[in-house]
């Protein structure tokens, strides 16, 4: 179990994590979503003991990560975003090293290495130097090194970043296997489709704060049945105001402006497909130039855009 309570981490005046709270339970895959720089990796750093929190409390399997760090880290397996492996060593040698760092020895270490090599499909390449592996194989070994000591809590930081589709499917299966074995999994990603299919509960983080949390259904409900309509072109505030006034007069009311920049306008509305013609006419009448349109059905992504005003990968 991971309990994060009012976690805060700042570097001088810069607040990287600002009062983040959530709980991830055994057997659960808890997703932490957010764009780059939102504070996900800092949160992971604080949970793993790499960073010392400025405030709040983090407990892993009941152990405070600051006061009882060794016990907390013993229960923890971390798969970092970067491929943190020794490229000159073989897969087995890497696993022996990382297993040794987590206190495994002798027969237990050998058996666990064998098990995770089998699970990640690397058994036949176990004795080759890692530098000869493909990117996907390195990702799988990176994962294997995080679970070699059979941790009770697993932190996965962008585990599938830059992975080929086959390796990605295999890695996601491995994550599910861990959860079904009762492991608490904290999964950070900015692939929303992954989060939707994998996570039982989610927290959306932006600017160091949790801006929404709950199950996928709960989060979808927050979005309602509203679509997101994104227009690209040239939009001044006067143009937007004029167009919305005209639309409300034409019974296209209930349109909300999610975000507006000079060249992009995002609107939230229900039944957007039926109102497209009226919307185009209104913008044309006020002299706006619309060059492109994207319509997004209610989803995690549309919720994220609605909550943060930007896409997850921005």
């Amino acid at each position, binding site marked *: 179990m991971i309990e994060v309570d009012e976690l805060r981490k700042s570097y001088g005046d810069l607040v990287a994590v600002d009062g983040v709270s959530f709980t991830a339970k055994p057997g659960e895959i808890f997703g932490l979503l957010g764009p780059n720089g939102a504070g996900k990796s800092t949160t992971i*750093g604080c949970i*793993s*003991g*790499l*960073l010392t929190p400025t405030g709040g409390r983090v407990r892993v399997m009941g152990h405070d990560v600051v006061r009882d760090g*060794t016990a907390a*880290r*013993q229960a*923890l397996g*971390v798969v*970092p975003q*970067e*491929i*943190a*492996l*020794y*490229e*000159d*060593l073989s897969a087995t*040698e890497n696993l*022996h*090293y*990382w297993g*040794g*760092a*987590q*206190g495994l*020895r002798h027969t237990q270490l050998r058996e666990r290495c064998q098990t995770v090599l089998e699970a990640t499909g690397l058994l036949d390449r176990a004795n080759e*130097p890692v530098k000869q592996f493909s990117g996907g194989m390195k990702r799988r070994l990176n994962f294997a*090194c995080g679970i070699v000591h059979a941790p009770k809590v697993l*932190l996965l930081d962008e585990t599938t970043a830059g992975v080929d589709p086959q390796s990605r499917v295999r890695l996601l299966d491995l994550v599910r296997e861990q959860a079904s074995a009762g492991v608490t999994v904290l999964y950070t990603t900015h692939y929303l489709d992954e989060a939707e299919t994998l996570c039982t509960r989610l927290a959306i983080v932006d600017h160091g704060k949790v801006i929404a949390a709950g199950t996928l259904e709960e989060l979808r409900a927050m979005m309602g049945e509203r679509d997101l309509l994104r227009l690209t072109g040239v939009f001044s505030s006067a143009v937007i105001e004029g167009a919305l006034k005209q639309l409300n007069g034409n019974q296209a009311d209930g349109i909300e402006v999610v975000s507006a920049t000079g060249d992009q306008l995002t609107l939230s509305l229900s039944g957007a497909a039926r109102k497209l013609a009226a919307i185009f006419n209104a913008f044309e009448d006020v002299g706006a130039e619309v060059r492109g349109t994207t319509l997004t059905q209610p989803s995690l992504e549309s919720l994220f855009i609605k909550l943060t005003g930007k896409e997850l990968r921005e």
Partner: protein
Amino acid sequence: MTLRFILTCAWKDLLRARRDPFGILVWIAIPLILGILITVVFGRGEATPQGRLLVADEDDTFVSNLLTGAFSQQPMSKMVFVEKVSREAGRARIDHGDGSALLIIPKGLSDAVFQNQPSRLELITNPSQRIVPNIIREVLSVVVEAEFYLNQIAGNELQTFARQPGSRVPTEAEIVSYTLAINRVAGSLRPYLNPPLIRLETTVAKANVSGKNLGAILYPTFIFMAVVFSSSALASDIWKERNAGTLRRLCMTRTPLLAFLTGRLLFVVMVFGAIGMMGVSVARWLAGVSVANFLGAVAWLVFSGVSFYLLLLWLVLHASTPRGANTLANLVVFPLSMLGGCFFPFSQMPAWMVRIGSKTPNGLAVIQFNALLDGSVDHSQLAMAGGVLLLVSALAWMLLVRRLQRFVI
């Protein structure tokens, strides 16, 4: 558990070094290659070059013996062995490169000298040798000139002495008579010689240079150069670990970074041990360096190397990029090496530089290393140098432990 992980860390570094051996091997090979080259070029043993002078003495008189006798006096007798040969045999041998030079003394040399007639000595040198034939030529020129002046001053007395039949030993009266005659000549020259216009002051040179070959002088320097450069290379390796993310990952395990650092230090000890064993062995058996205390010298090398490593490791942790780390390390390594006897031996450096260099950590280490090699260890000096290096190591270790966590993040 931690002890086990320390060994695991050291083993991991050994495996990495084995898979990519060139980084370390280059530093181990440097003293070996330099030592072999020096031995090949300058030979082993004492610095004095040695050669063989073949003499075809067809005159075989007092004068010709006087001429070759110069080579039987110290220090020439250590440099040049004189071997009497016939003209033909000598010529054949020198043509085959056997010998440094062939001196042909023609029959009638003695008569020509006493009658102030011109005479000709023939010296054939071996072109494959450069130093000894030149020495022979110079010595012969001096001796020929000396004989000329001697003949001018005491020619009559020498003639009388030289004309004695070869087998007859002069009587005591005759010896006294010659001695008095030569003394009279010397007395007549006294006004020109006394008081002496030039006063000769003799200073006995220190024994550290003389009696050692070039390898013995330079080799300890090369070994230390290898140790200092290896320290720098090994210290910079921490940047590879940082960039790979392995150090960050280790911080997220139950194992403290201190265990990693200790494991790395164990590996460094093994590397310096290998460099020391290899370097001192080559010094002893190939370069002809006298090694009074083999194990002591190797142990001192390892101990000093660990100090430099810790110091440089602490230093490179302050850089912001791997390139910056290399630059920072070089900024310290090169001046310290040049001053501290790791580029040039102290015996070849100006006194002011030696005064500064001998106060540097590597300078202290080099001096004691040399003392361990040639058996001139002053135990109080050794203990003092050891204390300084220990202090440097302890300080660097403490600062390192404090700095490493910040470096990793």
